[in-house]
């Protein structure tokens, strides 16, 4: 649907809502100046804080199960982040080897399937057909028709990861695998062997997907380098020795040049370092590092950030891929938005290598599953979810009821970067005419999808989100609008 409003003099605003193949609800408004150049882009996401209140009053041991209902997209990440916080509530943060490895297996299964889904389902249509291909073809059904082998790989990689989640969490809905202080099951030999028989195939497909992402980026580097790109800080967990660690570690942030901004701090004290800014035009907050301030302290999270913060990766094939990735920018942080896809596929291969290592570890068949210690009343759980750093912060009273919950989800952490990416793309596409063209619509979608936003999580609301763009002038009048269902 396209609606054209009358053109008026002065600054204009373009709005885009909603965005296809991104979950939740959001729209984009583009503000133009008198010369029809983009002065500001705003990605509007309706964020309700209802879920934190929903949790209040519930017993703490229910929380790792309840939080999975935030949405059905990454329930495992919420399950584990909440469980990590509740570990500390019961004084059981030093997990038994079996418990920690079962959780890691669950987490790498989630990372593997989520990254595969994003790449094959969402990104590959853009790469295989081009940004300007007909959206009716530029989707996974189009991939299945023209590249059936790739579509099958995506389906089966996703299925493999989902089966790992089911084996470690107990079931797909309301998984209960992680409990405060540990886990409630180990991995049987039968379950282990079920996964091992497909492991080599999964590794091969992960290598193949990485190759597609890397080759595409390398071949199109000249055009991708500036596409939605900008310099930024990057934040993630890293292991204490600087290795990439998707499950646990300390908080590290680097600036666009690679200088440390957060130097491996304990995430229990995240509130000393991170704050959330409220802006009058958005329901979603804008996190930033206090030491730098809201203007320049915002940061990116997710695969690109993790490749930029880690000193190395502790699995051989992913480490070799990381070195190739870093070589593109001479070892400095990579600020190319479209490099998210390459980074994501390095992590996909890393996850496959980790799954393989864990399946060969006899600790998964151990029977010492739970530990406890000194009770606490406040705790933070952090995890590197597929889309980036996920914060869960709780207070629990002496009656075991949750009295406060604060969640900062990955998409919220990437709020400012997504706005920047849209603004950069719009600035490059719009010059002189206040018009939402098909090309502009496509490029805004591609730029937002690089972050793989989970907007239904950020909004704490279910629902589909098509794409809607509006241009507003300096007086706030809509001068053009285009929507894609």
């Amino acid at each position, binding site marked *: 649907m396209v609606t054209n409003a009358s053109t008026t003099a002065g600054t204009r605003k373009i709005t885009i809502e909603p965005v296809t193949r991104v979950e939740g609800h959001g729209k984009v408004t583009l503000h133009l100046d008198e010369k029809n150049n983009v002065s500001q882009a705003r990605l509007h996401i309706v964020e309700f804080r209802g879920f934190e209140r929903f949790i209040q009053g519930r017993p703490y041991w229910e929380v790792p199960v309840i939080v999975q209902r935030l949405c059905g997209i990454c329930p495992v990440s919420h399950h584990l982040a909440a469980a990590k916080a509740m570990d500390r509530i019961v004084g059981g943060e030093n997990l038994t080897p079996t418990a920690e490895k079962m959780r890691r297996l669950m987490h790498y299964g989630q990372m593997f399937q989520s990254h595969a889904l994003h790449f094959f389902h969402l990104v590959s249509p853009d790469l295989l057909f081009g940004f300007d291909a007909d959206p*009716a*073809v530029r989707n996974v059904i189009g991939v299945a028709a023209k590249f059936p082998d790739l579509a099958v790989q995506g389906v089966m990689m996703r299925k493999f990861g989902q089966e790992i989640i089911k084996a470690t969490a107990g079931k797909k*809905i309301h998984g209960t695998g992680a409990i405060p202080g540990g886990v409630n099951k180990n991995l049987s030999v039968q379950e282990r062997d079920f996964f091992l028989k497909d492991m080599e195939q999964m590794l091969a497909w992960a290598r193949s997907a990485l190759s597609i992402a890397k080759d595409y980026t390398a071949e199109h580097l000249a055009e991708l380098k500036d596409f939605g790109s900008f310099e930024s800080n990057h934040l993630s967990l890293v292991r204490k020795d600087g290795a990439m660690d998707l499950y646990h570690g300390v908080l590290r942030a680097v600036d666009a040049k690679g200088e440390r901004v957060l130097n491996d701090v304990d995430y229990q004290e995240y509130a000393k370092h991170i704050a959330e800014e409220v802006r009058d035009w958005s329901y979603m907050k804008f996190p930033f590092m206090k030491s730098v301030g809201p203007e320049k302290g915002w940061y990116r999270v997710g695969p690109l950030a993790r490749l930029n913060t880690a000193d190395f990766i502790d699995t051989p094939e992913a480490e070799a891929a990381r070195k190739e990735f870093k070589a593109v920018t001479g070892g400095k942080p990579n600020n190319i938005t479209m490099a998210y896809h390459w980074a994501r596929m390095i992590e996909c291969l890393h996850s496959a290598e980790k799954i393989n290592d864990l399946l060969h570890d006899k600790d998964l068949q151990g029977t010492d599953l739970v530990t406890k210690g000194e009770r606490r009343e406040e705790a933070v759980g952090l995890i590197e979810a597929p889309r980036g750093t996920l914060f869960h912060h709780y207070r629990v009273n002496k009656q075991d009821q949750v009295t406060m919950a604060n969640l900062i989800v990955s998409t919220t952490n990437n709020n400012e970067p997504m706005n920047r990416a849209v603004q950069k793309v719009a600035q490059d596409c719009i010059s002189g005419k206040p018009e939402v063209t098909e090309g502009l619509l496509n490029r805004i979608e591609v730029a937002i999808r690089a972050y793989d936003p989970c907007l239904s999580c950020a909004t704490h609301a279910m629902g*589909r989100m098509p794409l809607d763009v509006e241009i507003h002038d300096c007086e706030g009048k809509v001068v053009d609008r285009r929507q894609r269902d």
Partner: protein
Amino acid sequence: MTAASATSAGLKPVLVIGFGNPGRQDDGIGPELARRLEGSAPEGVTVDSDYQLMIEDAADVAGHEVTVFIDASTSCPEPFLFREVHPREDASFSTHSVSPEAVVHLAAKCFGGRPRAFVLEIRGYDFDGFGEGLSARAEANLSAAAGFLAGLLRTKDFDAAAAAGTKAKASEGPEPQAGSVLQPDGSGPATGAVE
């Protein structure tokens, strides 16, 4: 694991998938009916549930002769509607959710064959807030649908049931009355009340 290995072992008879978010009130109708069916399903019926359908469900659909999706609906006739799912390119589906039509389409494209699928839509009313449990009206619709599905899984006369559902919907306009789909035992098309 390949497409061929996923299907070469022969097709299993029936897959039932209930999907929806139990933390979103009536959106949890599908998983709740799947939960009630577990343990009592006839031999040859596999029961599964999830928050939403996703591309990997295509592999499971391709591995079964018949799939029955169970979903909450905001607009279907009360108490429920049973209809056949025809493959359709669903270009508008979003990141993390796929329609039954797109799952069936993807199953055929990726794994070959002509998978048969049906959807049991159960009318719900409360979807907007966070909360567990179904509304009283949704619970009543769920009970009616559970009886219908139990009978249908015994008779396995899916075509007749779907034809009856389609006929009832067409003949009664956009707002068919309750119980216009099938007898609760699934024995055949009927227009009597579904209790």
